Structures are given as C-alpha cells and as structure tokens.
C-alpha cells in the first residue's frame, strides 16, 4: 500500500474499525475464547502455587525473600500501561493515527520497564541468594508462575512493537485495527493476571507468611 492510499484509508475509517469486517469480528471473538483458555491456564498455575507455597524445603520462605516496594512499583507501572493502551484504543476510534502510535509506544516502554524490574528481581534471587528453580517446590512454583507471566509480557511487548511498525507503514485500516484492538485486550489480560500475582504471591507471601 502506498502512503497516499494509507492516508485515504485512515480518513474513511468507520467509527469502530475493528468490528467493521467479519474477519475483524471473528478475530475479536476468537481472541476472547483464547483468553478464556488462558484464564484456565493461569488458574491451574495459581492452584499449583497455592498448593506448594509453604513447601520451602530448606530454602527461604516467601516472607524472607520478597521485597514489597519493588513489586509495588512494578505493579503501578503495569497498571498505568493498561491505561495508556486504553488511550491508544480511544485514539484509534477518533482515527487519530499519530496519537494511537504515541500511546502504543508509551505502553511498550512501560511494559519494558516492568520487565526490567522483574529481571532485576530474579537476578537478585538467583545470583545473590543462589535461589533457583531446583531449590524447593515453592521456588519451582514461584518461578514458573511469575515466569509464565513474564513470558506473556515479553510476547506482548514484541507483538505491540510489531504492530506499531505495521500501523506506521500501512496506516490505520480495517485490517490493522482489529489487530491493535486484540493486542490491547491481551495487554489488559496480562495486567489483570499480574494483579492476582501481586496479591496471591507477594502480598500473601509477605503478610501471611
């Protein structure tokens, strides 16, 4: 698509471009279904974690290990990134390509900062405390649950970055709009899961022990 065509496409955009075509609607529905499956996936991981959270063997326990300030900051960052992705979708509905791209970029940057904090946290545990996957059932469950969430964040970052490139190049069309919309759904989901992680893993671990 030439730039000219892309400009035109952006101008004639329907109000909710993500739902303008059958493909777009199918994509959104399919994605809701996918998220339902993801919810079961994380549900099983949480159940596993809850079963094993006191099985620390001779490793440290949750209250000895975690530092709440870092995770609280991480949580804040991720929650804000959900908000910025809402701004992105609002911009899309106004057919404002520029502000859409800006907000998506902000979302990616926030996601990336979250990731850095998490990597720092894991690095501390593994390198400073020598606390790894094999230490205890608790550590296995912890790294698996939080790591799974982290992998979702990485995937989301790559995905949204790719979309930024695509929208910049091809413009905002009825083909790109559903993709952006779906990626925002994904991002909200990842954030919601983190709220549970923060509560169940960190708060519960620190407060109840």
């Amino acid at each position: 698509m030439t730039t000219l065509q892309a400009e035109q496409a952006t101008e004639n955009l329907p109000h909710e471009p993500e739902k303008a075509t059958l493909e777009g609607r199918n994509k959104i529905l399919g994605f809701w279904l996918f998220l339902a499956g993801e919810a079961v996936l994380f549900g099983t991981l949480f159940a596993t974690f809850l079963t094993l959270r006191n099985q620390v063997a001779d490793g440290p326990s949750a209250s000895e290990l975690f530092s709440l300030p870092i995770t609280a900051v991480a949580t804040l960052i991720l929650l804000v990134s959900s908000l910025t992705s809402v701004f992105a979708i609002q911009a899309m509905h106004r057919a404002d390509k520029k502000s859409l791209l800006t907000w998506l970029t902000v979302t990616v940057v926030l996601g990336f900062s979250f990731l850095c904090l998490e990597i720092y946290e894991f690095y501390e545990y593994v390198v400073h405390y020598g606390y790894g996957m094999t230490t205890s059932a608790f550590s296995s469950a912890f790294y698996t649950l939080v790591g799974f969430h982290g992998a979702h964040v990485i995937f989301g970052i790559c995905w949204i970055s790719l979309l930024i490139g695509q929208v910049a190049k091809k413009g905002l069309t009825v083909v790109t709009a559903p993709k952006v919309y779906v990626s925002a759904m994904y991002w909200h989901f990842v954030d919601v899961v983190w709220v549970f992680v923060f509560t169940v893993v960190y708060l519960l671990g620190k407060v109840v022990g």
Partner: protein
Amino acid sequence: MDWLTTVDHKKIATLYLIAGGFFFGIGGIEALLIRVQLWKPMNTFLNAQQFNELITMHGTTMIFLGVMPIIFAIMNAVIPLQIGARDVAFPFLNSLGFWTFLFGGLLLNLSWFMGGAPDGGWTAYAPLSSTTYSTTHGVDFYTIGLQIAGLGTLIGGINFLATIITMRAPGMSFMRMPMFTWTTFVTSAMILFAFPAITVGLVLLSFDRILGANFFNVEGGGNPVLWQHIFWIFGHPEVYILILPAFGIISEVVSTFSRKRLFGYSSMVFATILIAFLGFMVWAHHMFTTGMGPVANALFAIATMLIAVPTGIKIFNWLFTMWGGQITFNTANLFAVGFIPTFVMGGVTGVMLGSAPADYQFHDTYFVVAHFHYVIVGGLVLGLFSGLHYWWPKMFGRVLNETLGKIEFWTFIIGFHLTFFLQHFLGLIGMQRRVYTYLPNQGFDMMNVLSTIGAFLMGVGVIVFLINIYITARQPAGVENDPWEDGRTLEWSIPSPPPEYNFKQLPLVRGLDAYWKEKMAGHKEMTPAEPVGPIHMPSPTIIPFVMSVGLFIAGLGFMFTTDDFGNSFLNFMFNKYIVVIIGLGITFGSMIVHSLNDDPGWHIEPEEQGGKGVEA
C-alpha cells in the same frame, strides 16, 4: 504440495482422517502386541519394560493421536456444511492445528527409535514418570509431544466455537442447529476449558524432569497427588470430549435412517450441556484410592452417578426416535444401533466404578480396562465408524460397499465383545491391570485366550474397512447430493463432494432439519439467502507447516538440553539451548511473516461457479 498449503476445511478433514487413521493403526498394532503377550500365563514374548512402553504408548496414541483427530476429521468435513458456511472462521488456524497435531504425534512416536518410549502409563503418574523411575527420554517425548499436539487440539476447539457462533447460515438459530453441530459446539467448549490444564501439567512435569524442578518430587517439598488432580481435571472431561461427538453422530444417523426427526431435540441439547458441566465436577472419581478421605469420596461418587441422568435421557430419546420409524439397517445405522446397548453397558459399569467403596475392589483390575474400552471403543469407535460410513459419500463422492460394510460391522462388534466382555470377569476374579504377565491356574487362562482372539477379530474388521475404502476409491465417483435420500440437514443439499466454496449461495434456514423441511414442502433445493456473486476465498499458505516444524525442532532441542553427547558441537548446540532457539525462531519468525503479509485472498467469480444460479 497442495496438501501442505491447503486451508480448505474439506482437505484438512482428509488430512486429519489419514493421519488419525495412521496413528490408530499404530495404536492397534500396539494393542495386539499387548494381547499376544497376555494370551498365556508366564509368557516371555515381551519383557516388563517393553510391556510398559506398549501400554503407555497404546493408551496415549489411541486417545490423543487416533480417535481425537478422527473426530476432528469428521467435524471439519461436516460442521461448515451443516451450518451452511463456506469455511471455518479461521482457515489459517485450522491448518496450523492440523500440523501441530501431526508433528506432536510424530515426535511422540520418534521415542521408539530414540532410546525408549514413555513407560509410566498413559496417565504418567508421578513418581513413576520422574527421572528416578523412568530413566530414558520416553516421558520427555510424552510431555513435549503431547504439548505440541495438544496445542493443535486447543486451536481446533477455539476455531469450531467461533465458527459455530458466527458463521451459521441466515435463519439458523441455536435451537435449529443439527445435533452433531451442537455436540461439536459443547465439545469445543470443553476442550477450551480442559486442555489448558493438561498444558500446565505437562509443563510442570517436563520442568521437573529437565530443569530439576520439584513440583512432584517429595524430597523437594513437591506433591505427587497434585499431578493426579491436574491430570484428571483434564482427563475426565476428555472422556466426554471424546464421547459427545459420538452422541452427535448417533443422533444424526438414527434419525436419518428412521425417517423421523430426532425425538426430544431440546432435551437432547439440554442433556449435552448438563453432561459437559457435570463432566468437570467429577474428576476425583479416578482418585478414590488415593486417600482423599470419606467426605470427598462421597461427594465425587454422587456427582459421578448424577451423569447417568442426562445420559439416560439421551438413550431413551434415541430409542423413541427409532420407535415407529421406517428403519433402514445399512452399515452406518448398524453401527449406530450397535452403539446403543454397548455404550449402555459401559455406562452401567461406570456407575459401579463410581461407587467409592466398590472402586476399592475394582481399582487397577481388568474390570476398569473392560469398562473404559466399552465406553471408548464400544461408544466412540462404533460412533466413528457409523459417522464415516454415513458421511463418506459426502466427503468423497462414493458410497462405501454395503456387503463389506456389514462384514466389517459383524467382525468388529463380535470381536469387541469377545475381547472386553470377558475382561469384566477377569477383573472381578482379580487379574491386575498394567502387569505384564500372570501365574497359571488362577482361572485367568481361558478367558485371556478368548480375549486375544477377539482382539484379532477386531483387527480383521478394521482391515475389511480398509479394503472397502480401497475398492470404493477405484470406482468412479459421482453420487447424488443426497445419496441416502433421507438426508435432513444442509450438507445433503449440495453436491458430493462439495465444491471448494461449499455453497454457491448461502441457504435460508426455515426450521430444524432445514433440508428435510424444504423437501417436504416439495422443493428440490434450499431457498438462497443471497444473490449469486463472487465468493471470497483465503489463500493457501505453507506457514502453518513451517511453524509446526519449528516447534518440533524446539521440542527436540529442549528434551536433550541436559544430555552429554560426547561431541563438543552437539553438546554446544543442545546444552546452550541453541537448538531450542533455532526452533522457536522458525516458529515466531514465520508468525511474524504471516502477520506482516495481510492475505487479501482471492475470488471465485460467478462464471466459474458452474451450475445454474438462482436469483435471491
């Protein structure tokens, strides 16, 4: 090449059928080897290790790689036609689902050639499946192969759900959907909620084995019973994922060949949903002897027995459908009618097993083996044969030979009952399951001989079916739209096999059994719901194939990360995760390529659509 890149649901159905049939054959050979080993006491045909590998691979192969894909084959062939759609909602994902299943299955079976198959039983109970007790890479092939194959199932489930929700022809409300579409819908929903659980379970088990995690390792604080919960919260619904489509097939076949509408349609729908719901509530009936305590056992026992109620509704509705109908006993209907009493027997022994105190007696004996084969073979496999005979003309434009079909039916069903009926009694007098041999003169000897003979008879039945396919395929195609003449649903209103776009014009549905309704009103065709116009088709693509190859490579790489190959290059490639990264790179790389190239598809113009067009 055409077959590697196709996204057409009808061709993908054929691919599923061939691949599923292939694995079903392997599983069958494994079953026969097991039966040869057990035909006499103290047999030395196999040793204990080989026997364990064979039962593990037999169960795993049959369930995940044999019958599931054949179900998906029938669904793919039939669902878009039954709901009046031109394809599934996501043709690309449909192809991806097939290829991940196939490569997962190939990976799993590679274990036979790479140092030993999985040997912990198809349930892979910890600690049997831990590196302490299962020292080869067998269980790694199990976890990773099933992981990749399971991905395909999940994708398929989501695809069918979306297809049925959004792609129904105008006028087809939910309560006008054919019963097979309904059961596919509910089955897909169950897949969506059950498969992620096993996904997690398989991840945890492979982390335990490969990364040294402690989920199921008691010394590190792990909990083996956790594996059982995760496995069965998937595993029990899986049984209904298998049987519900068979229920759907039987409903279609019985009503077509009784020339009557299905008795109690809405109660059938309701019963299907109820079974699915209860299916998720009863997983722990597999764990009565694990020591959950009397309260949990009682609750799970009651919930289990409740399932008999909706199932009973179904059975009676089939009987009432036949009651007073003009019944045609061709092969498809013989299998359907044979299904009913056989499945009832499986259900009755299920209620017996569902009683916790009784299960302490039955557990891990041949009684259990007899029970689940009555359900899975006597239920599902009979249902699949029925469905294949019924829809074969639609799929391939040829009716299967009836004489051979009847020979197939009788050898298979006689062989089946001979094999498994006796195993109830073997179990009751104490023959243990999963043990590679037994002592003479315990009363087991004669029944085991007969059981083995029965198994071979079933094999004969399957071979007759293959001969039938071969002979039929050599005859010219060209059956009518509606070869049974009593077709009731939309698929029978279009040519056999259907053209690439299925419906030239989407049909207008005016009631349950839409096509039958039009026929009764004296019409020969469905009333179209749209004018003739260009039809949009998705382009073929190789990307799903490449993505699955990538996963296959990554899986192999991950499995061997801790091995010492005695070769510095190989050690480097595997121990530093290079192979994993290459494999995942291929997968994600092709995903990116796919997402960057928006597929505009192509159009079939009205002139190319053949036949006479009807103005809407």
